[in-house]
């Protein structure tokens, strides 16, 4: 991670600040490192680059529920608003067992069609997230088949200007093929299943040029037979300028590893260059 950040800082003087997109339109960073909402990857690519610009952004997210704490930090590159590359590292504290699970996620996303705001049809993107669990012992002991897996998703998103009483409404729908248990932190596959297509939906309303509120729903498989639940959140995101965004959310992660009613708070910061 440190090497990646240093490398990124070395590259910064070579590029100029990308600011071609309208404020807030790239969304924020989701927990697996892609541009999106908090939980769901969106069709938008990270950062403010348009067709002839490139952009770099970095983020850190902390999500704490009753028995677990997730820290996710990463970086994103946007090449000409066509390709997004991302890396995130997740550390997941299992408080009752005083142990930490970690995984690395390498992501790529290609914008296939459209523009969030202007095209007739929603912006459409195809993405992959390759995940490698570096602490697989717990996952294997729970019945997971693999310590790595690749999620493939298609995402479509649209911002409707003035749709709701003059307020802008943004929605995103993603369909993800995944074998991951608890997004990969509990390994991949299991005796109950080994790969499924799940739906993920986000809706947001912009209250002004700088502030958005919204909600997300992320369907998840239950490969391990541990009553793994779908995830939900309700969020508020603040975009004071094109250099930084901040998100706070109330999250409901349901049952994780047999421990029910995991609710709590989520905070995320993204910086853009």
């Amino acid at each position, binding site marked *: 991670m440190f090497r990646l950040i240093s490398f990124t800082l070395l590259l910064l003087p070579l590029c100029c600040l990308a*600011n*071609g*997109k*309208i*404020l807030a339109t790239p969304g924020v960073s989701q927990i697996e490192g892609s541009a999106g909402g908090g939980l769901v990857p969106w069709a938008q690519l990270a950062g403010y680059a*348009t*067709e*002839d*610009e490139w952009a770099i952004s970095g983020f850190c997210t902390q999500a704490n529920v009753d028995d677990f704490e997730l820290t996710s930090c990463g970086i994103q590159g946007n090449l000409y*608003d066509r390709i997004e590359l991302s890396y995130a590292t997740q550390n997941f504290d299992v408080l009752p067992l005083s142990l930490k699970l970690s995984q690395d996620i390498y992501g790529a996303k290609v914008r296939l069609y459209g*523009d969030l*705001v*202007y095209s007739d049809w929603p912006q459409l993107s195809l993405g992959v997230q390759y995940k490698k669990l570096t602490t697989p012992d717990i996952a294997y002991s729970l019945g997971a088949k693999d310590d790595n897996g690749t999620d493939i998703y298609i995402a479509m998103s649209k911002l*409707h*200007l*003035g749709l*709701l*009483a*003059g*307020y*802008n409404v943004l929605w995103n729908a993603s369909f993800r093929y995944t074998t991951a248990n608890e997004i990969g932190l509990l390994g991949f596959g299991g005796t109950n299943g080994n790969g499924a297509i799940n739906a993920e939906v986000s809706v947001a*309303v912009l*209250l*002004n*040029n700088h502030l958005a*509120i919204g*909600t997300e*729903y992320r369907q998840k498989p239950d490969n391990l037979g541990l009553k793994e639940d*779908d995830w*939900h*959140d*309700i969020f508020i995101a603040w975009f004071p300028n094109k250099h930084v965004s901040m998100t706070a959310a*109330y999250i*409901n992660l349901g049952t994780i590893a047999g421990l029910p009613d995991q609710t709590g708070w989520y905070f995320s910061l993204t910086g853009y260059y």
Partner: protein
Amino acid sequence: MKRIIPLTLCLLSFLGCSSKVTEESLYQQLNGQPGIEKIVDSFIQQIAKDKQIFPYFAKASVSHFRQGFITHLCDVSGGPCQYQGDNMNDIHTGMQITEADFNRVVELLINAMEENNITYPAQNRVLALLAPLRAEVIKI
């Protein structure tokens, strides 16, 4: 989920309440002809100060643009005008306007409306009316 749905509905209905003010036309929300003239004048000042956008206007006639845009805004916002000026394609052909330039102009127009205390919903309605013209403006 049980807790999130009511909370979301609550937030959405809060937004719904503000729709009472939308009974007047967009033209009225822009404060009619004098309001639109002020917005366009602010917009021209914004453009004149902007290094990225000003070059596109360097050879243009300010008074021609001013009158054309005032009539256009009056027309699309439901005012008593009909825009019969040059079409968007003809005006912008050869300019090679990029996506970033277009968005910058949108931001300058937002600034101009902010300067004239146009409400956020009215700003969005103006943008929604102008956004479909983008295809006739950029990269030609």
